[in-house]
């Protein structure tokens, strides 16, 4: 046993080395622990007392472990922003005792900030800006220099010919710092403060806001909650705060206790901020839209919910987000810390704010900040920790979101469906389903019915058909999912049934892939195609039928007959279409099977992405366009293509670096003659490979561009036709044209596709503008595309 343990330890060390993490000694570990914990509450003594003790402790060791302590403090500043005032107080106290230490910390933080920005870690760099500003409150930095520091952010935002998202980031950073340092600046750096306020106002006036409607969870005007542009909303709140002479109750100002010590400390000057040079491959954070779910009346508690426009609401949201960010890999500690935060703030209904923030993140557009499954499990964990209160809050959340579902963007409905079905699968699919039955009589494109229908479908997949049917009220029959059985359409009357029998027998005899190829060869001389396409359909049907028991059976059938399928499908595009059509007709009632098998066929390269897209957007499939699965398959296929392109891009980058470094060596001329030829040849080989890769990339990118263009054109046509013919047939209700729920839904799906592939499509946006939205495009649709384009304005 001990031998084993020893090995474990060795391996651990090995692993750390491999990962490049430095080995840290016991003292550093201890330091890390005590410094990391100083902000904890409920330790028996106040944070102020703990800070005092820690200061004394660290001061003794300051010279010996200086650089370690500085590193740890920097880590706290970047990754524990919810404790910012704790650590700025600590640095203040240490600075008061040791002036150079304060200076070194500041220097380190500035270097880290630059580094983070170069690595495009914008959130972390912003945390540091707040920390640096707050050092003005704890007597480390002069207010004057902080004012100038913030002014230099403003200057960066006003640089010419820069993307708006970059400028937004700098303005947002300044605004986010002001709750901490605004008062100090107003008192001691009045001139800078005025400049900042004026410049922000000017900036917001000239800023493009086209993107806002596209990022709203709910269509404009459909809820009583405004979904404002985040930057504007923040700016307005800061303005209110300024008018109120920076009075707010949220930030715990630990340094105030130590004013006597801190005010005598020598202060440093914070150097101006210099923004890293912008390059075209930099990706800045997307603009945000404010997400608010609750109003005070919803909470029904004694404590007051800060209004949607107050800085307190915003600060709460910010702090909750920080706690989530910090614990994004551990749902249990995340839930624990959120709960502790709620307990620390009994004066506000923090539980409501926690759920509001989580669902705001879940529904954020274009992308949620964390994987959906993390939010799913976090919600479960929260309910577990507070079983008396939080289930009620969650119910209110779901009710509110459901009641607004008719005006919700489809991409957000999908996310809610995924979360809610997972959630219910942990609670035996029990819910107050009855309360939702009204929407069953709505038309099939209404958001609420779509939501309900898809939740039920996904519950079926997570549990079973029988279980979900048993959990639903009897009058839900209209939206019951289909029983997920295979449909085998070849009956004895069918002319093809004889062929089906032959194939069945061949499968039973385990004949090799070649034998099927021979059997499928076209015998008709007039046939332009090498294989009989209808018989190919029969072959696929029989194969699917025989493998229908489980996914494992299906996969082994696909692998066994891969050569048959691939040879036929490579012969002409029609076969791929036939394959997908056959798959659909067999597994129509089992969407999960459709998704997984399509994905497998793509991975095995039996079919390609464009045939999948062509199939899904063929007119025959329009009837499925009110379902979620189709867009899941579509987005998965498109995403796969993007990932393949990314792999090639990365290969090119690696190869380029390799070639360049070799060229340098050769140029240096230190290599002997014979070695040189070897190196030369190798280099030549690599350069050739690089060229091949580049050609491949060009091919793939233009394939992707054309694919998107073709598909978007087809999609726009479909949406247009939804606006013009709204017959009673499709159940789209009384209102016609661009107000009908069908039109709005399909247009929403169009936005979904844009948002889901935002990074790729923004690259191709000029080509799309030209090919898809040239003259005569429906303004109702091209409007969405214009909004989309300004995401990276």
């Amino acid at each position, binding site marked *: 046993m001990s031998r*084993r343990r020893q*090995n*474990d330890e060795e*391996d651990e060390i090995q*692993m750390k080395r491999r990962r490049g*993490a430095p080995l840290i000694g016991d003292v550093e570990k201890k330091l*890390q622990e005590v410094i*990391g914990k100083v902000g904890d509450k409920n330790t028996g003594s106040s944070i102020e007392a703990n800070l005092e003790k820690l200061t004394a402790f660290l001061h003794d060791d300051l010279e010996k472990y200086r650089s370690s302590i500085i*590193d*740890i403090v*920097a*880590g*706290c500043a*970047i*990754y*524990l922003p919810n404790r910012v005032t704790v650590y700025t107080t600590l640095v203040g106290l240490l600075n008061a005792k040791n002036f150079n230490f304060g200076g070194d910390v500041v220097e380190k933080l500035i270097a880290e900030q630059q580094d983070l920005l170069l690595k495009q870690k914008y959130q972390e760099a912003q945390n540091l800006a707040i920390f640096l500003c707050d050092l003005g409150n704890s007597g480390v930095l002069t207010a004057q220099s902080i004012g100038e520091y913030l002014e230099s952010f403003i200057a960066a935002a006003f640089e010419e010919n820069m993307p708006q998202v970059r400028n937004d980031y700098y303005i947002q950073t300044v605004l986010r710092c002001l709750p901490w340092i605004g008062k100090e600046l107003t008192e001691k750096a009045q001139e800078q403060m005025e400049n900042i306020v004026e410049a922000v106002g000017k900036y917001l006036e000239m800023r493009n806001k086209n993107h806002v409607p596209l990022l709203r969870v709910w269509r404009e005007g459909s809820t009583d909650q405004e979904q404002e542009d985040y930057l504007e909303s923040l700016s307005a709140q800061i303005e209110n705060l300024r008018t109120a002479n920076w009075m707010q109750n949220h930030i715990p100002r630990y340094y105030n206790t130590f004013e006597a010590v801190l005010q005598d400390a020598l202060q440093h000057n914070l150097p101006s901020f210099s923004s890293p040079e912008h390059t075209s491959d930099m990706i800045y954070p997307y603009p945000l839209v404010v997400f608010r779910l609750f109003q005070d009346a919803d909470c029904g508690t004694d404590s007051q919910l800060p209004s949607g426009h107050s800085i307190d609401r915003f600060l709460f949201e910010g702090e909750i987000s920080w706690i989530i*960010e*910090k*614990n*994004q*890999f*551990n*749902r249990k500690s995340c839930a624990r810390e959120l709960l502790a935060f709620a307990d620390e703030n009994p004066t506000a209904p923090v539980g409501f704010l926690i759920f509001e923030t989580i669902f705001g993140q879940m529904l954020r557009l274009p992308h949620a900040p964390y*994987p*959906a*499954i*993390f939010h*799913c*499990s976090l919600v*479960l964990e929260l309910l577990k920790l507070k079983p008396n209160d939080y289930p009620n809050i969650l119910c209110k959340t779901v009710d509110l979101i459901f009641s607004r579902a008719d005006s919700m963007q489809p991409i957000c409905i999908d996310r809610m469906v*995924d979360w809610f079905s*997972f959630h219910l*699968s*942990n609670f*035996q699919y029990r819910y107050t389903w009855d309360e939702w039955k009204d929407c069953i009589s709505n038309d099939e494109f209404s958001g609420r019915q779509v939501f309900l229908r898809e939740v039920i479908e*996904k519950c079926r*997949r*997570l*549990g*079973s058909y029988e279980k979900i049917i048993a959990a639903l009220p009897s009058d839900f029959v209209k939206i019951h999912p289909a029983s997920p059985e295979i449909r085998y359409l070849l009956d004895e009357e069918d002319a093809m049934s004889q062929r089906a029998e032959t194939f069945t027998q061949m499968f039973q005899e385990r004949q090799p892939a070649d034998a099927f190829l021979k059997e499928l060869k076209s015998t008709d001389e007039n046939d332009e195609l090498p294989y009989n396409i209808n018989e190919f359909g029969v072959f696929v049907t029989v194969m699917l039928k025989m493998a229908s028991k*489980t*996914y*494992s059976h299906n*996969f082994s059938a696909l692998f066994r007959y891969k050569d048959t399928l691939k040879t036929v499908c490579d012969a002409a595009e029609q076969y791929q279409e036939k394959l997908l059509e056959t798959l659909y007709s067999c597994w129509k009632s089992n969407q*999960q*099977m459709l998704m*997984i098998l399509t*994905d497998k066929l793509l991975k095995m390269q039996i079919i390609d992405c464009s045939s999948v897209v062509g199939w899904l957007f063929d007119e025959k499939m329009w009837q499925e366009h009110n379902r979620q699965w189709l867009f899941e398959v579509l987005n998965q296929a498109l995403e796969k293509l993007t990932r393949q392109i990314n792999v090639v891009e990365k290969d090119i980058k690696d190869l380029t670096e390799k070639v360049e470094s070799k060229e340098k060596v050769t140029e240096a001329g230190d290599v002997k003659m014979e070695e040189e030829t070897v190196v030369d040849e190798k280099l030549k080989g690599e350069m050739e490979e690089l060229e091949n890769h580049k050609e491949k990339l060009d091919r793939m990118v233009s394939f992707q561009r054309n694919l998107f263009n073709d598909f978007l054109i087809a999609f726009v046509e479909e949406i247009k036709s939804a606006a013009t013919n709204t017959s009673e047939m499709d159940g789209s209700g009384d209102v016609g044209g661009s107000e009908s729920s069908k039109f709005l839904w399909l247009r929403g799906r169009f936005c979904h596709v844009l948002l889901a592939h935002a990074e790729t499509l923004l690259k191709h946006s000029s080509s799309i503008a030209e090919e898809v939205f040239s003259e005569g495009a429906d303004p109702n649709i091209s409007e969405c595309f214009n909004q989309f384009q300004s995401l990276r304005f």
Partner: protein
Amino acid sequence: MVFDPRTLDQPKDISAYRDQRYQGSVRDQELALRTSCTLYVGNLSYYTKEDQVYELFGRAGDVRRVIMGLDRFKKTPCGFCFVEYYTREDAELALQNISNTRMDDRVIRADWDAGFVEGRQYGRGKHGGQVRDEYRKDYDPERGGYNRAIAQKSMVE
């Protein structure tokens, strides 16, 4: 950097369980566990189906394959499975967020696995199912009722 949630490492730490029948050195096993994309999933109901596993674990990423654990003799599900992802990251996400949630109303438990090898899909208990079904004390209708020892005894009586 200190306190970076990405280097805090808790989820990457592997549990203390080691497959005692692993073919290879301890060192190989450790490395395999730390680089594998495969999870062992336990405490399933005998009635849970493969497609449910795909649906649930597909929420964390692209699943390469699912291998259902089978009774060695009866070739019927016996309450565990292996889930193999394409990437380590997806497997980590599943471990962090799906382990200890419910499937078919049972709290399922996931752990790293050194990788599926043919033969491992079978239960290792004397009766053909999992060893734990021979020792557990509770009555568990979704896993064949009482444990095998008690069940046999009561049959004799």
